[in-house]
Each structure stands twice: as structure tokens, then as C-alpha cells.
């Protein structure tokens, strides 16, 4: 490794946390913290500052486990019931996708499948992998892991799609003479999965991915 490479590596490890600086998440200002303190107040906007998100790993784990548990009823319970002359038909998320596929709207089937099944399950698994990697102080490609986290952050909201679909169907096909659609318990469980996984992503601190990086060069 050449001298310039080594210097770059050195500069690369100069983090705010290491120098006792706290970065404000509201206004970006850096504030000096008291020695050994991991909390403080922003010198510009007065926001409460923390070196890292508090109890990030514990909170993310708690929310992830809740997410895994809720994922089961979300997929097994019907998200909507259709009452018609031919009786009551109950749809789960998966049967809704299958219905779209067989009725010829394969492109919508793909969209709903990605938003309602692929994104929530992939999100639970990849976030688990990220938390485990941070707990084990892994140094495996931090840039790649940060990118994965960014993708998780930006796609999570699209899982709400099915909830909105059910809401509109319920409102339109309601107290109709022939057909009525009601929302099922699965919709509530599924909504809870979306909320819990969003909260889990927010609780995770991507800076933890980079912290072992610093230790290795010290």
C-alpha cells in the first residue's frame, strides 16, 4: 500500500463520533460534545443530539421480531371478503395476486406481488442480515451494505399499496344491492407489518456499519 493510499485511509477514518463531535440531524451543524458524552444539544437549533441512534440494535431487533410474527397472520388471514349472490369469497394477499394474474392483468399482478409480498419479506430478511453483520462487527463491504440499507429505506413505503387498494374497493363496492366488499383482519395485520418494518428501518443506524471500519485502522 503506497503512502498516499495510507493517508487516504487515515482521512477516511476521521469520523465525527471519534472526534467528540455531534452532528445535528435537523440542521447539519456540528457541535462539540462534553468529554465522554454521547449526547448534547445543537449549538444552532437546540435539537437534542446523539452520537448514534439510541439502542439502535435492540430496537431494530424488537421491531423485526414483531414484524416476523405479524407477517404470518398478514399472509394467512383474508384481507378482504366479497359477499355476492354466489356466497362469500375471502381473499388473502396471495390469492389477490393470483386473481389479477388469471384475469389477464399480469402487469398489475407483478406490481402487487412486488409491493405486498416481495418487498416486506425481503425487507425483513435483509434488515436482519444488516443487524447481524453490525453486531458481529463485520467489515464486509460497508458501501454495499449502506446501499442495501438505502434501498430498504426508499422501497418500504410501497408495501402500503394493498391497504389502499382494499380501502378503495371497500368504499366503492359498499351496501350495494348485489355485492359488498369488506376489509378482513388480514388487512390490519398487513398494515401493522408495513408500519413495524418502516419503524425498524428508521431505528437502524447506518453509521454502525462504518464504525468497525474505524477500529480496524486505529
Amino acid at each position, binding site marked *: 500500500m503506497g503512502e498516499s493510499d495510507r493517508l487516504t485511509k487515515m482521512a477516511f477514518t*476521521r*469520523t465525527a463520533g471519534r472526534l467528540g463531535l455531534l452532528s445535528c440531524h435537523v440542521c447539519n451543524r456540528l457541535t462539540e460534545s462534553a468529554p465522554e458524552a454521547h449526547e448534547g444539544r445543537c449549538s444552532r437549533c437546540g*435539537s437534542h443530539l446523539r452520537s448514534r441512534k439510541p439502542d439502535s440494535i435492540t430496537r431494530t431487533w424488537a421491531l423485526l421480531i414483531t414484524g416476523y410474527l405479524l407477517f404470518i397472520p398478514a399472509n394467512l388471514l383474508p384481507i378482504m371478503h366479497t359477499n355476492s349472490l354466489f356466497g362469500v369469497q375471502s381473499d388473502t394477499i396471495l390469492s389477490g395476486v393470483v386473481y389479477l394474474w388469471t384475469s389477464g392483468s399480469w402487469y398489475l399482478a407483478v406490481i402487487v406481488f412486488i409491493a405486498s409480498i416481495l418487498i416486506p419479506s425481503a425487507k425483513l430478511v435483509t434488515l436482519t442480515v444488516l443487524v447481524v453483520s453490525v453486531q458481529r462487527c463485520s467489515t464486509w463491504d460497508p458501501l454495499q451494505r449502506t446501499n442495501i440499507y438505502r434501498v430498504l429505506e426508499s422501497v418500504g413505503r410501497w408495501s402500503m*399499496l394493498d391497504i389502499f387498494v382494499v*380501502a*378503495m374497493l371497500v368504499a366503492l363496492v359498499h351496501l350495494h344491492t348485489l355485492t359488498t366488499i369488506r*376489509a378482513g383482519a388480514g388487512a390490519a395485520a398487513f398494515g401493522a407489518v408495513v408500519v413495524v418494518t418502516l419503524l425498524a428501518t428508521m431505528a437502524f443506524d447506518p453509521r454502525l456499519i462504518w464504525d468497525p471500519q474505524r477500529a480496524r485502522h486505529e
Partner: protein
Amino acid sequence: MVTLPVIACHECDLLQRKIALPPRGRARCRRCRAILYRDYPPGSDRALACTIAALMLFLIANAYPIVGLEVQGNRQTASLYDAVRTLWVEGREDVALLVGFTAMLTPAIEISLLIYLLLPLKFNRVTENTVPILRFLQTVRPWSMTEVFVLGVLVAFVKLEHLARVEAGIALWAFGGLIPLLIIASASFDPEELWAKATG
């Protein structure tokens, strides 16, 4: 107060010197590639204009039906409020709250707070509680899901087409217009300008 020319990356905590950017340029973290800060065109006119337009479309989007359905001469329309109310009345209060919160309440809060911040700025004044409002906006933003809602309406639309004749209501077009406006408004909103003025 002198601003330190140093910034810490929000995603990896690396300290970096701040440099002047070319117009509309963006500074990325050299370690994790996160966007650190960007250059905004001077003045907050574009953000304000888009936010006011967004407010009007938002009111239309909430006041008028989104979709209409016709079965054997019976016409039924549904607005966003109808959707929330029906869910509530039929005993799915949890889902009703979730839909009301993410599709109605948070976008409303987001738009009105932006106007509350930007309008005084236009007259070179800064709202007193700028700090708590900006902080609140940051918290609320991830929960405002207008664009997801619109996709949901479109999926419902196609699903119903198999059953009956469906037509798009005024509110659907308003929602469609709302999305780009909200994107432009938040992309051209420069919090640094606000900080510079708020803290003197």
C-alpha cells in the same frame, strides 16, 4: 456565528470539508456516497409556488370523488374520506386510521407546514418556531404516502373494471398532479436558507 466548513455524513459519520458547489450541484460523501448537501437556485419562489399549487390540488383531491362505479344503472362514487369512513363504520378502525393517517393527515400537515415556513420567508421574515416545525416535518415526511395511494387507486380501478363500468373522478386527476408538485416542492426547498435567516 461562523459556520464550520466541516460536515459529518449522516449515514457513515465521516467528517468532510464543505466546498462550494456548481449551480444545482450535489456534494456526496466520498466514503459512502450519501448526498451531503446540494446547491439550490437562489430564492424560495419555486418551492412556495409548488406548495401553494399542491395545497389547492390537495383540497380538490379530498373534496371530490376519486372513482365512480356504475352497476345496472346504480351509480356509486367514493372519495378518500368515504374510504376511511366506510372502513371505520364496518369495524376496521385500525385500517381506517392507517389510511387516514398516511393518505390524508400527513400530506395535509406536510403541505401546510411548508407554506407556514415559506410564505413569511418570501417577505424576508422567519417564523418563530422554525426549529420545532422543521424537526416535525422530518418526522412526518416518511409517513406521507400520496404516491403509493394513487397507485393503489389505479390497481383498485383495474380490479373493478372486471365487475362494472368504472370512471375516474376529478380527485384522481388532482392526486395525479399532486405527486410531481410535492416532489418539486421538497426538492427545491432549501432548509439552509431558513437556518441562515432563523439564526441570524
